[in-house]
């Protein structure tokens, strides 16, 4: 007896530890067994979508899959808050304990996610050119998977890896959300303003009224997060005419180097380019209708103002549809409206706005399968199920998002707001990085809060931009040169694959290799030389922009017309 007591006293600590360990093992086993009974296949799906409806929609999708495809499969969601998603994903992936499916692109810089995708995820390229078996019986039954996407599955493709890595689930656009009841109460009309001037009038009416506490109503709820959407969808579009002056490389956009070159050459300036003045005038109008101090406010604070019914309009993405509707439930009605643009006869903006604004829908919610997944075939099968026409439509209808797959129906709340895929877009980019960009950001912030005028902005920024911008531009050039090694690394990897492959796989790898060699190494060498020449020596065409007719070209056209050369009018 004494020896037992002595033994117990001697090993008490070890016994406690062993019992605790045993208890923990049993608890985890019981919890896991309850979650996934023996014989079932468990797939864990991690994401950060805490928006209302997402978890329910995924659960519904999982139940549907279990019922119609594989009763042994259990899908368990790990919902991780946005603020720690990046750290969480890093530790799980590096520790080899990652879930089977993870949504990509949140919480970490792009290049880190690309590195993770390369190391820890399974490429899906082999399946994108075959039809999705779950589209059988629909008009998409014979269509390759990638072509069943609105964007040809661009968001699932990672250019740096030359592989499809994700099967995106939804599409998003930006719109203005408004409090229908408050709009009607304050302006007397439940119909949202359709034109810019009508919108400004409505804002003025809203601003002039106070609530029961005596506080003035605010037309627009904005924040650091929200304001950029107003710029992108309204004021930036006024810079489209700069395309004709500054798209020197003829790619249909105006890059930071082209903007800089055009300013240095005098083709563009803050004083002599009226569309730029108009753009800033619109920024002034919009900012004057936001709540005071909006530039220092976070996303949640702006949403709170909207929920408190102190604000009528708020611009955000369609991912917020359900959460805004739920917040308003039983209190007020939420409407969605398009951005109100100036009409052609608008005295200030009409001459510069050449058409409707081009929408930039983007596909999001991008799940990828980890290499540690024990059942990658089943994980892939589940994702194919999720991106089939019928299921994708149903999933997005539940969440209130736009389906990623073609020929699907949108949620009723979004109907009528299909993206407009033809229009104008921003064509100036002052971001050369370094001090130039800091200066621009500082002055633009002051302008937004009405502490400096447009002329003051121009006087303080333009000389600085022209002088210091050159230094920042040269640094960008050096960055590009240093970054060439990354392309060389990637190309050598593809070449090794090509050398090791045979038959069709070898042919495909060589095509990929040659295409990437030209795109990543050969052409950039020339285009950067052209950029440098453009910036240092100015455009060769003198005062004529790249999309303007020179006197030589006009003479040639005149000569052709005079010679009665056949001219086919365009349809």
């Amino acid at each position: 007896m004494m020896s037992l007591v002595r033994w117990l006293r001697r090993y008490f600590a070890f016994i406690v530890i062993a019992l605790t360990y045993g208890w923990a093992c049993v608890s985890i086993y019981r919890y896991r067994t309850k979650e996934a009974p023996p014989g079932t296949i468990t797939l864990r799906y991690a994401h950060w979508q805490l928006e209302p409806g997402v978890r329910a929609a995924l659960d519904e999708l999982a139940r549907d899959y279990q019922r119609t495809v594989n009763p042994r499969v259990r899908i368990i969601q790990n919902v991780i808050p946005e603020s720690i998603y990046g750290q969480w994903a890093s530790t799980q992936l590096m520790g080899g304990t990652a879930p089977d499916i993870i949504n990509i692109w949140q919480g970490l810089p792009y290049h880190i996610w690309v590195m993770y995708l390369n190391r820890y995820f399974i490429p899906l390229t082999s399946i994108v050119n075959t039809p999705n078996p779950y589209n059988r019986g629909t008009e998409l039954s014979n269509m390759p998977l990638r072509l069943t996407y609105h964007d040809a599955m661009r968001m699932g493709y990672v250019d740096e890896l030359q592989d499809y890595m994700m099967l995106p689930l939804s599409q998003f656009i930006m719109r203005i959300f408004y409090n229908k009841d408050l709009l009607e109460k304050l302006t007397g009309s439940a119909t949202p303003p359709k034109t810019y001037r009508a919108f400004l009038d409505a804002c003025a009416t809203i601003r002039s009224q106070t609530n029961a506490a005596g506080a003035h109503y605010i037309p627009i709820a904005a924040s650091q997060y929200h304001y950029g959407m107003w710029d992108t969808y309204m004021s930036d579009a006024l810079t489209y005419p700069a395309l004709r002056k500054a798209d020197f490389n003829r790619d249909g956009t105006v890059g930071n180097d082209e903007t800089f070159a055009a300013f240095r050459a005098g083709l563009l300036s803050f004083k002599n380019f009226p569309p730029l003045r108009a753009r800033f005038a619109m920024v002034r109008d919009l900012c004057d209708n936001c709540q005071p101090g909006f530039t220092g406010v976070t996303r949640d604070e702006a949403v709170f103002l909207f929920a408190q019914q102190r604000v009528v309009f708020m611009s955000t993405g369609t991912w917020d549809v359900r959460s805004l509707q739920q917040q308003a439930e039983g209190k007020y009605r939420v409407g969605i409206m398009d951005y109100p643009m100036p009409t052609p006869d608008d005295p200030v903006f009409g001459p510069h706005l050449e058409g409707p604004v081009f929408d930039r829908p983007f596909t999001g919610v991008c799940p990828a399968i980890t290499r540690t997944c024990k059942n990658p075939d089943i994980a892939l099968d589940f994702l194919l199920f999720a991106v089939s026409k019928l299921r994708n439509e149903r999933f997005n209808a539940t969440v209130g998002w736009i389906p990623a797959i073609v020929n699907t129906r949108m949620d009723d709340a979004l109907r009528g707001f299909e993206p407009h895929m033809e229009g104008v877009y921003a064509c100036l980019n002052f971001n050369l990085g370094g001090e130039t960009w800091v200066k621009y950001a500082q002055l633009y912030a002051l302008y937004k809060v009405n502490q400096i005028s447009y002329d003051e902005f121009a006087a303080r920024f333009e000389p600085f931009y022209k002088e210091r911008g050159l230094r920042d531009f040269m640094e960008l050039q050096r960055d590009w040169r240093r970054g060439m090694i990354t392309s060389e690394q990637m190309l050598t990897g593809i070449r090794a694959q090509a050398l090791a492959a045979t038959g069709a796989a070898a042919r495909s790898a060589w095509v990929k290799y040659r295409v990437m060699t030209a795109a990543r190494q050969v052409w950039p060498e020339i285009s950067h030389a052209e950029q440098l020449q453009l910036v240092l020596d100015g455009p060769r065409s003198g005062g004529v922009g790249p999309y303007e007719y020179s006197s030589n070209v006009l003479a040639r056209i005149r000569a052709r017309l005079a010679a009665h050369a056949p001219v086919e009018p365009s349809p």
Partner: protein
Amino acid sequence: MLHFAVRARKRRWPQLACVLVLLGCAPRVARGPDALLARGWDMYRAGEYTQALATFEQLARMAAPTSTMQVAAWYGMATTWNLRRPNENPDRARRWYQRIISQAPPGDYTAWSLLALARMQHLALTPTGDADAVRRAYQVVLDAYPGHPAADEAFLHQQASLVATLDTNASLRALASIRAYLQHAPTSTLASSLHGLMGRCYNTLGDYTRQLAMEIKECETRVFDPANPYMDNSMQYWHIATTAEFLAGDFAVARHYYQLFIDAYPNDQRRFGARQALLRMNALEARLRPAAPAAGGPPP
């Protein structure tokens, strides 16, 4: 003595058990030469350069001297020392490439090693560096392995470095070389890129009609990676159409390519601009046809 030995063995059994457990836990690595080579490149692509080097070294040790497999391993080691970041070692990389060139029988790896040496020179080139020396390095590959893909690529880089000078004499030299090359190998896999380079040369020379012709040929001979969703002809169509309209003044070609663009890329942001261009050309022709007033400046 026997008793002592048994006791000693008994005392060691926990250590023995640990070793066995650790052996059991050790990751199963690829054993065959092909599998080792594939694993080495997988590690390289994943950015695990230390493991890639270890794998290539293991393969180099186990393969027969100067066999294809050993040369492949050397090439893997040379590439890793050359392009790994951080801890790259260009000198060591260069030595490995040179060892391949001097010791291995002529073949794929010797050709690619020669090109790699030229690329090392090219990527280290500063704006004031000796560009001619880089072009000579590419010429070494061309002379040693004519017709080999490495030589084709060397030719492409060599000519691109001439075109990138944006100098008229260099452009004329590049034009002559590319023309000769294409005469010799009209169906080369690089035909599209080479036509593109010729287009750039003509741009430098101010011959926009020929530039337009070359851009069209570049587009027509393009080879596609069918799996790449970002690879399409939208940029080529837009480029040809705007070159035709604003540089060559050839509205028929411009109309054709703007229309192709509109039809093929309904979701491209430049579609609006293409429609505007069609209207603009009609308006300009209508304006110039009757009395040809003095014109210039931006289109209506």
